[in-house]
């Protein structure tokens, strides 16, 4: 394991501290219990947005704290969901009285910890709604599993729900927009290599030189199928097929196409995947109205990518286009 770190157990502390130093104009870092708030939180009259999860997915979530997106991010240990004693003060800190939406990726740990925190925040008088993100089509038999995971779609939910909150939507409306994004987005990922959790020191799984993991999540867990390496176009088709099928993308649909790097893949390769995905979508008669290409929800230094397709309507497009000013996503301001 070779990493630019000091003590493996200090990784999250030091990284979040560095993040706070680099973006002091945008965020405040609260060290103990650890959470990150928008500098001007709570914003009067605005619904607060809180997300969080294990660390190791940077820039998610702290990189999305700021105007038009999250009010607070709660980083857990690497790949470990945060605890209620972090989530509760983060929730209280961003509540202006208009209530708080928790954006939770569907993993048992995240769900349980946010559930507890929501109950306790409610007990303190904060109205909380939860948007559960579960966009991962790689999980097939969701009846017999913990359900579909929250992956790439999370970034889109955070951006669009964040824009709804920023324009002044009330608590239920913000949560409803978040749910709508979640219902209209599907994601699937591939890993060409595993990643190494600092405290573990060994790769999260072993892959032969000619193998890849199809249907990975974002925690370095193995995927659903392990198959022989293929060319980028074939891999892209393999990821896109279940997405388009499950989402029921039809001719005339307008979509946002999001090609996300897992952390160790050159940007140039993401554009090769994007190219093919755009071609396939065009072949189905869908119009790619908006695009996002880059490392936004990662698994440490894992090589690989995920593709997300979000079906757009005019309101979602307008909310996507609305100004955002965070460390990792910025436009219109």
């Amino acid at each position: 394991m070779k990493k630019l770190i000091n003590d493996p157990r200090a990784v999250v502390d030091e990284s979040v501290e560095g993040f706070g130093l680099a973006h002091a104009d945008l965020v405040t870092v609260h060290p103990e219990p650890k959470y990150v708030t928008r500098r001007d939180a709570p914003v009067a009259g605005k619904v607060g947005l809180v997300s969080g999860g294990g660390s190791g997915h940077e820039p998610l979530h702290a990189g999305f704290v700021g105007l038009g997106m999250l009010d607070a991010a709660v980083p857990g240990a690497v790949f470990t969901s945060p605890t209620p004693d972090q989530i509760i003060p983060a929730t209280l800190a961003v509540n202006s009285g208009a209530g708080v939406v928790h954006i939770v990726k569907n993993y048992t740990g995240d769900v349980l910890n946010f559930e507890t925190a929501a109950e306790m925040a409610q007990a303190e008088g904060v109205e909380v709604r939860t948007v559960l993100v579960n966009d991962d089509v790689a999980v097939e038999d969701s009846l017999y599993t913990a359900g579909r995971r929250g992956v790439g779609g999370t970034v889109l939910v955070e951006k669009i729900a964040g824009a709804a909150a920023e324009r002044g939507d009330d608590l239920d409306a913000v949560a409803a927009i978040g749910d709508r994004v979640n219902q209209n987005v599907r994601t699937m990922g591939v890993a060409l290599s595993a990643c190494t959790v600092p405290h573990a020191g060994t790769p999260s799984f072993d892959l032969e030189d000619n193998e890849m993991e199809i249907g990975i999540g974002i925690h370095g867990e193995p995927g659903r199928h392990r198959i022989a390496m293929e060319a980028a176009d074939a891999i892209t088709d393999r990821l896109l097929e279940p997405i388009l099928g499950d989402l029921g993308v039809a001719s005339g649909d307008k979509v946002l196409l999001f090609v996300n790097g897992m952390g160790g893949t050159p940007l140039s390769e993401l554009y090769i995947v994007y190219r093919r995905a755009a071609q396939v979508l065009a072949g189905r008669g869908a119009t790619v109205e908006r695009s996002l290409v880059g490392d936004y929800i990662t698994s440490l230094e894992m090589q690989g990518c995920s593709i997300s397709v979000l079906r757009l309507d005019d309101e979602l497009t307008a909310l996507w286009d609305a100004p955002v000013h965070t460390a990792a996503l910025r436009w219109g301001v």
Partner: protein
Amino acid sequence: MRPCTLLPSAGGYDVGLDVTWAVKWLTLSAQAMAEHRVELIELDRAIGDSDHGENMDRGFQAVLDRLAETPPDTPGAALKLTAMALMSKVGGAAGPLYGTAFLRAATALGDAAYIDAPTLAAALGAARDGIVARGKAESGDKTMVDAWTPAVDAALAAAAGGDTLSVLIAAAEAAEAGAVATDPLVARKGRASYLGERSAGHRDPGAASSALILRAAAGAAA
């Protein structure tokens, strides 16, 4: 280690368990998590995300810190403190599940200074029920429930005619067997469930840590 008061038990007179036992249990649990940290990480690496050993180790170190800061008066207080420490330091799925388990057990014990065998078995049952209430897993889903449910069954059976030590030994043995029995299962809850059939052939890390904790409980009473 043994308290000077003798309590009645179904099988005659039993040496009851007190706060000293509880503290020793938690101390031995913390030792077990530190010792088996890498092993639990490895189990989680195979079908999860490589953090279970790290999380449990961090959590029980926090338990030790809090035990030192504010020494508890009763077994129930010790377990409540443990619940709070695990809830706020473990994170992931295991944090809330173990947190709830210890909290329910603490509630079952109430303020009692000494615990007899039936109370002990009932507290273990409450812990298991708490895990099921939070996690909604059934037996055979390849989770920590597969260690706890046989442990509780064995504890209840032992409590009918035995002392607290025999309850804890029965629970530990059953939990260990339950953990081993998760090996062939296909996971249906938690992170391992995403692997589908590929989760078979590996031991569930939470079941393994549960067995370690219950073995520590027996060790503390021995």
